[in-house]
């Protein structure tokens, strides 16, 4: 049995600098089904944002709406300070995108596709593209339609980072990659982030990658952004409290900052924000239970909160 407390986590936003992305009241429906229910979100420059959410939470839809690739029903999206009604303008030179599945232009050869794309950009790092093609064993003479899903994903990543964009939007980019390619990709991503002002919005289920990138975590649930917070802050402030007593728990104990309670056998597992160890010890001795306070992994947090 588990319950999620209605305690809202305050959204994180750095107000000192102009945000790269500002979303307000974004709504999106597919036929009668409302997927995004009034999203308000700001992304400051120079950060890696990990967008987390369960399957069907609307992560892909949100990312596509941000870039103007999917029409929105209400609200506004601003990218680099300009309203994004549809993709266009000089700012497109500053944006890179890796879609969830790459199924474009199957008749094109890898080299022709990269040449075609490079022709549109003012800035294109040919050396980087060549190096990645070699490292990732992508044959420039092969047709895109003949590539495996993982190889296509690699190509999409090469295409997205070769223009050295200021904003990189990645929709589950590593889902089809082998561990070697995933690590290589993360290394490239971290290298890219070394340049000042680079921002990455990264939707993934592989939380270890977000931990490696020290990302800010944004949780999308029930069609809304539940919170955006730095990973270090989440680790520091969120704890799992395990109370064990013989005979179990008829109901979850009341604890300040409780986000979610799960009762399992003799255990009461509580996800608590800003846990107070003294009051928890007092609670444990009052209830005749043993107390364990653990720091959850990002995956644990995702499982608990998403």
């Amino acid at each position, binding site marked *: 049995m588990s319950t999620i407390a209605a305690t809202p986590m305050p959204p994180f936003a750095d107000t000192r600098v102009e945000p790269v992305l500002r979303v307000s009241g974004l709504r999106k429906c597919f036929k009668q089904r409302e997927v995004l229910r009034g999203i308000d979100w700001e992304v400051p420059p120079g950060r890696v944002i990990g967008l987390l959410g369960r399957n069907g939470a609307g992560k892909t839809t949100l990312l596509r709406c941000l870039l103007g*690739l999917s029409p929105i029903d209400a609200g506004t999206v601003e990218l680099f300070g300009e309203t994004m009604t*549809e993709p266009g303008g000089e700012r497109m030179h500053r944006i890179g995108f890796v879609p969830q599945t790459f199924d474009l232009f199957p008749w094109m050869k890898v080299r022709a596709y990269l040449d075609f794309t490079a022709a549109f950009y003012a800035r294109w790092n040919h050396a980087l593209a060549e190096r990645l093609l070699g490292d990732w064993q992508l044959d420039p003479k092969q047709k895109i339609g003949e590539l495996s899903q993982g190889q296509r994903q690699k190509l999409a990543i090469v295409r997205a980072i070769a223009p050295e964009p200021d904003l990189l939007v990645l929709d589950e980019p590593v889902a089809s990659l082998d561990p070697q390619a995933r690590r290589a990709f993360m290394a490239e991503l971290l290298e890219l982030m070394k340049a000042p002002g680079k921002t990455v919005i990264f939707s993934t289920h592989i939380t270890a990658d977000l931990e490696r990138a020290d990302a800010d975590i944004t949780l999308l649930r029930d069609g809304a952004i539940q919170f955006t917070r730095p990973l270090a802050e989440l680790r520091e402030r969120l704890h799992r409290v395990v109370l064990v007593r013989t005979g179990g728990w008829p109901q979850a104990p009341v604890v300040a900052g409780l986000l979610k309670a799960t009762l399992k056998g003799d255990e009461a597992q509580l996800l608590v924000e800003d846990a107070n160890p003294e009051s928890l010890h007092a609670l444990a001795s009052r209830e005749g239970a043993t107390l364990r306070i653990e720091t959850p992994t990002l995956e644990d947090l995702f499982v608990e909160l998403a």
Partner: protein
Amino acid sequence: MRAVWQLWLQPCRQVLVAALLLQLTWLVGAILLACTPAVGAGIAGVAATLFGFGAWFWFTLLGLSVRGLCRPESFLLPGFRQRLAAMGTLQVAQWVLLPTLVALLMRVPHALQGGAGILLLAAIGLAASSARYVNLLVWALFILAGWQPGLASQLGKALVASPWTVPLALLLAALIARLSLRAMLRIEDQEANTSPLENVQLGRSRARSLDGTPARRGKLAKRIAALFDNTSQWAMEQALARYRAKPTWRLRMVLVRRLLLPHDNPLAIALRLVLVAAIVAFYVLAMMHRQHFNAAVVGAYAVLLGLSRFPQLGRGMRQMRPNLADLYLTLAPPTRADYQQTLIDALAVLVPITVLTTVAYTGLGIVLTHAAEPVRMLIDAAIVTLGASLTALAVHLVGPEGGFGRGMVDFVVTLGGMAVYWGGYWLLGTLGIAFGSAVLLLVTLGFGLGVWTSARREYLRRPPSFDAPLA
């Protein structure tokens, strides 16, 4: 300019031969136009015809190519729309502005009207790539010319003489181009994929781009598709209920058919007949108004319509291969040959369906045209379609893997079917209905069964393939 050049190259990269032929057409037109001062104004007319048809086909090709490029992700390319516009301007300059300017400099009569006409044809070609109903505009002119040649001639003369012709043509071209470009440049959510084996016979007006992505459907087309989907769902539920109540081999086969051929259930067939009736009526109307109209041609068109089901089957079976692994595991056949046999049995239902629909189309044509020998046409259509559909199904089971080979096979089978219909019609007229039918049946069914038996044997011999088709 690099981006514009890359965009210009796309039709050549996708369909090199057609692109080269059309560019050659332009070159011949240009040479002929250049010869005008030496040969006379008559040659300029030939050049204008070449430019006109060339522009029509080239812009259709261009539209198909550009539509494939206009995926939402492409709009993230910086200045994509502007570069596309620049490329379009260059194309118009090549096919319309340059020839018109040269013709004007050479004082070729009606050069401006010719240029405006070429531009109109180019716009129609572009629009035809995404909404083929625009081609009906050209069809309407042909119908008018065939129905009332005197009136058409008078109209032509009036258009050449009128000062309004050029602005009207330009206006119409701009309107058509705007309509087609608006559809191409619109960013919208991707529709859910349909089964590759759906019967898209009706959707032949729903053009596909060169990379195989379906055109975006309008509201009416979406409603029709929803009707078909509802019939598929209903048929599947019925088949499931019957199979659960009485799990026999026959009902299991029905279930497999409902899965593989979602639009070949009785309700969908009836719906298709009703809708195709409208198209057939248009064709018949168009043919009737020709001066030397032959009612028997209706049967050949019916054969063409009936057989147009099979190319989609060939493409669909290849696209479906990875998904068929799921069917294989579900059916759990004792041997691989049993599985292949199940597929053959399921698909064989297309033969009677094609025969029945072709006969229905022919019947409809007979009623519309008041054809003199309905029995002769119906028998001919039924016999020929039986043999031709067996052949078409056979060649798509074991036929070539590549798109070019499949295209050639489709072309030969369809044209062959139409030619045999004509031969059969003559045979039935010469030998009489009874004897002629027997001979025709012997020849066509003999051929069809021969091809079918060989193909079936070969298909059973082959192991099932679940590999995704390569690009």
